[in-house]
């Protein structure tokens, strides 16, 4: 009873915030609604008994991916007038893309068949008394280990690619060398002098190494 009410409330919020992501005028608000949508999706996972997936969805998507979205969107210089002009220009194209997507989804929905083993699996999503996380882990690291490792390798390659594309070795400015700073001895940089009254001490010419 309570489960049903919560399910419908959460789903309604999820759909409403998904609509707001595309319809709100301010891009920052869009990202915030996206986060709300992720969050409600996590609650739905939780209600389906997939507690591990729910938490990972929040940690990865809300905690990391959406933060980067926010970062980029906040720094954009948003010109609202130009945005509104764009809407009128691109509306037909967007409409066409929307219709194509809708027709495709309709085709999929019409020709949908449930796999023979799926109904039984849905009735018992968690095998026996094993907790959700253990079940996922023992499947992912045994049966699907090669696929899992492959996904990891692809991510690693794309990460290195992104770093290589953006890394420029700019040799400007003073770079801090912590080891050099630690190795500096007082004798290298300090000199005790007895300054005579009215004359002061004469500075020796500074060398590059002393800096």
């Amino acid at each position, binding site marked *: *009873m*309570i489960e049903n009410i919560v399910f419908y409330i959460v789903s309604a919020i999820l759909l409403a915030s998904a609509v707001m992501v595309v319809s709100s005028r*301010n891009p*920052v608000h869009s990202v*915030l609604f996206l*986060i709300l949508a992720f969050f409600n999706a996590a609650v739905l996972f939780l209600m389906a008994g997939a*507690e*591990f997936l729910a*938490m*990972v969805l*929040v*940690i990865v998507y*809300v*905690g*990391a991916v959406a*933060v980067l979205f*926010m*970062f980029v969107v*906040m720094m954009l210089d948003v010109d609202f007038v130009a945005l509104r002009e764009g809407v009128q220009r691109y509306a037909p194209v967007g409409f066409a893309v929307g219709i194509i997507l809708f027709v495709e989804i309709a085709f999929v929905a019409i020709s949908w068949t449930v796999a023979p083993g799926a109904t039984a699996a849905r009735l018992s999503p968690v095998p026996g008394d094993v*907790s*959700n*996380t*253990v079940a996922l882990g023992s499947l992912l690291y045994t049966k699907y280990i090669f696929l899992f490792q492959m996904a990891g390798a692809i991510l690693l390659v794309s990460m290195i690619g992104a770093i290589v594309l953006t890394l420029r070795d700019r040799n400007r400015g003073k770079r*801090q060398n912590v080891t050099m700073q630690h190795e500096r001895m007082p004798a290298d940089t300090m000199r005790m002098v007895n300054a005579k009254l009215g004359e002061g001490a004469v500075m020796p010419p500074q060398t590059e190494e002393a800096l």
Partner: protein
Amino acid sequence: MMAFFDTDVGIVILTILKSLALIVPLLIGVAYLTYAERKVMGAIQLRKGPNVVGPFGLAQPFADALKMMFKETIIPAGSDRILFIMAPMITFGLAVIAWAVIPVNDGWAIANINVGILYLLAISSLGVYGIIIAGWSSNSKYAFLGALRSAAQMVSYEVSMGFVIVTVLICVGSLNLNDIVMAQRHIWFAIPLFPMFVIFFISGLAETNRAPFDLAEGETEIVAGFFVEYSAMSFALFFLGEYANMILISATTTILFLGGWLSPIPFAPFTWVPGVVWFLIKLFACLFTFIWVRATFPRYRYDQLMALGWKVFLPISLGYLVLVAGVLEVFGWLPNA
């Protein structure tokens, strides 16, 4: 009477009562943590600290709270009103809801869930939104700079924190906080995993935006950072949220590394002491260290902060994780293996 608590309405009422039993002491704890901080820092800096309101200044937190309540809330003209008001609520709300899974004694948690530690990690990764939203909606350059700094800092330190937690988890074999504490019956994880303990504590300082990592605030360079435009109760909520987060990180450290409610000396007179007392003693020790660090260290420079997170903590925690996993595998100490 007990049958009533098994009905739908009864469960709701019971949960509300449990939450109140946790939130009220937590808020009083937050109030007195601000007092303790001023007193301890006063003692360290050879001052007296608050000593006027009430005996030993004990009523000072309440005087401050009253002052905050009666001040005027100012909402800047160019701000995004709704988000501006929401941001402190998000910060404070997240700091409180994370407490739902913290066990203060064997089984004494509002929700003893299987993925407790993941829940804590998820909530702490959400904490950055309160700060980002505050910085953006204020429509002020200082606030925005503070928010950007804080977002980058929290995302960076969460990575090494995650690896530290994974290291603890492979020693436990469960994500349940109760199991994590019970796995430390024989030895606290702070001893075999000492480098991880240090990294976790320092990452905790960075995660809560405390000194020496309080660059989001940085009063000498960006005035007060992300909450420069906030006043009265909305400011108070940020303040309370920061202190509630401090207590939360201390509780997490206690559970992960200091054996939670377990007695440090496992025989007769010490095991009679209730677990809550041990938990609180360890919690206070962590909190004292937080304040001690603040009174001792100068603020980090921003690039050094980033270098510390990515070039020092991340490699060390990753290396130690591999080492611990290898040792557990070779000696056959892996739990549930």
